[in-house]
């Protein structure tokens, strides 16, 4: 279970999060949506302790991770797997070494066992036989799949996805969505997805959090969100730009 209480975060003078609170139950699949640059990825990074808030609390299974130092956080992070927007694969290693990284560091397995587990994880993400490739040889979608295989190989309780479909074509995006659902159902993990892809949000989420103006603006089921008449929610869902607003 993850609980966020009154989280505040600023970078310099710019406030990004201002009193954000929510709760994610075990096994739940939550999608965080919001405008680009609205603080979704910043919020996600707080859940795993990659960023420290200015104030507020983040509780993972009842433990406040904000009070922990980097070494104490390592223990909590073993409950998590994270897929990055740009995949963040280690470019000096092969696909197999990337996927096996967590196993080699934390579990005492033989090379044969590691090879088997890597092959299995790559099969789950529909990339069998790519063990010896380098990350530079892979397409954007394939890199994200390898990132997912790396995140799930040691069977975490919670998987975080930072914009998993951004920059991918609709067909690859669809396959990534199916993969997220498959991993969620197969491993029974708590899933948190940050996205601004509404199609993805509808398919993947049991629950949707909408971040707007530094706060949680909506916290509801996907059906309720899509039926909402709230002008801010409607504008985001319909993708309509405000003529008065400077967007770029």
């Amino acid at each position, binding site marked *: 279970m993850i609980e966020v209480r009154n989280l505040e975060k600023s970078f310099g003078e710019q406030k990004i999060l201002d009193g954000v609170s929510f709760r994610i139950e075990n096994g739940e699949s939550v999608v965080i949506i919001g405008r680009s640059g609205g603080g979704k990825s910043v919020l996600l990074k707080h859940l*795993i302790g990659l960023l420290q808030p200015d104030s507020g609390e983040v509780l993972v299974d009842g433990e406040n991770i904000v009070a922990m130092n980097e*070494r104490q956080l390592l223990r909590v992070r073993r409950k998590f*797997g994270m897929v990055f927007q740009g995949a963040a694969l*280690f*470019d000096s290693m092969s696909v197999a070494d990337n996927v096996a990284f967590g196993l080699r560091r934390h579990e005492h397995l033989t090379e044969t066992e590691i090879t088997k587990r890597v092959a299995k994880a790559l099969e789950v993400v529909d990339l069998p036989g790519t063990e010896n490739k380098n990350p530079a040889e892979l397409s954007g979608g394939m890199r994200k799949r390898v990132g997912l295989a790396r995140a799930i190989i040691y069977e975490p309780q919670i998987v975080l996805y930072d914009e998993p479909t951004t920059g991918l074509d609709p067909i690859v995006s669809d396959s990534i969505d199916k993969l997220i659902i498959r991993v969620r159902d197969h491993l029974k993990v708590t899933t948190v997805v940050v996205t601004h892809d509404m199609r993805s949000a509808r398919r993947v989420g049991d629950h949707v959090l909408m971040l707007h103006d530094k706060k949680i603006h909506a916290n509801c089921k996907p059906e309720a969100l899509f039926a909402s008449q709230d002008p801010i929610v409607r504008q985001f869902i319909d993708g309509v730009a405000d003529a008065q607003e400077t967007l770029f």
Partner: protein
Amino acid sequence: MNFFLNKWFSDWLAGLGRITLLTREAVASCLTFKFDRRDLAYQVYFIGIKSQSVVLITGAFTGMVLAAQTYYQFHKIKMDTATLAVVSVSMCSELGPVLTALMVAGRVGAAIAAEIGTMRVTEQIDALRTLATHPVDYLVVPRLLASNIAVPLLTIEAMATGIAASYFVGVYLLGIEPTYAWWNMLKYSHDSDVLIGLIKSFIFGGIIALIGCYKGLTCEVGAQGVGRATTEAVVYASISILISNFFLTLTLEQLAVLLKV
């Protein structure tokens, strides 16, 4: 003006504090053996074996030029055979460790900062952290230990090459009498000169690795950030080596006298 001076000083002090904390974290991690031995072996290969040509050329030509310069001065007062003694003491206690460290700082310090900086910019360091791996254990400790092992070995190599090269220049090119020159060299060079050189090179190795890692870990986002981190790693490591060398010379020479080494 005062405002900028204050800001520069407080930034400098904050940086010094951060690098001290990084050193503490790295030393604590070394003592608990949390690093991967294969990474250590690779870093020793990268820092030690791959720096061979740079160190050999630097050592040899420094020894040769020092021999020639010393000979031309000593020849005026008929002290030709003291040439090798001067070269030997200089190469062991000063030039060997300092020049080796400066060359390694240029090659290895820059590479460390660029590699870790790129990892930071592409979120690979965040990925490490999400995989429950402390960046200090995985990135800093193998480089620090490898540098502490490789730089003293490279320094010994530079000392030996410099002395050998100065012998050839002195004896075969400038016509110094070899037996007396060799005897004088052994008479005036002491174990303490070599020991001082090795202690210095061990410390310089640590400075190169820690500054390279620190600059990489704190590099700003973007290509420009990585470029700046790389340049700063080399400049700061070189300056730190030169400044610390002065204080190390004073301290270690005094210690050698006190302990009668």
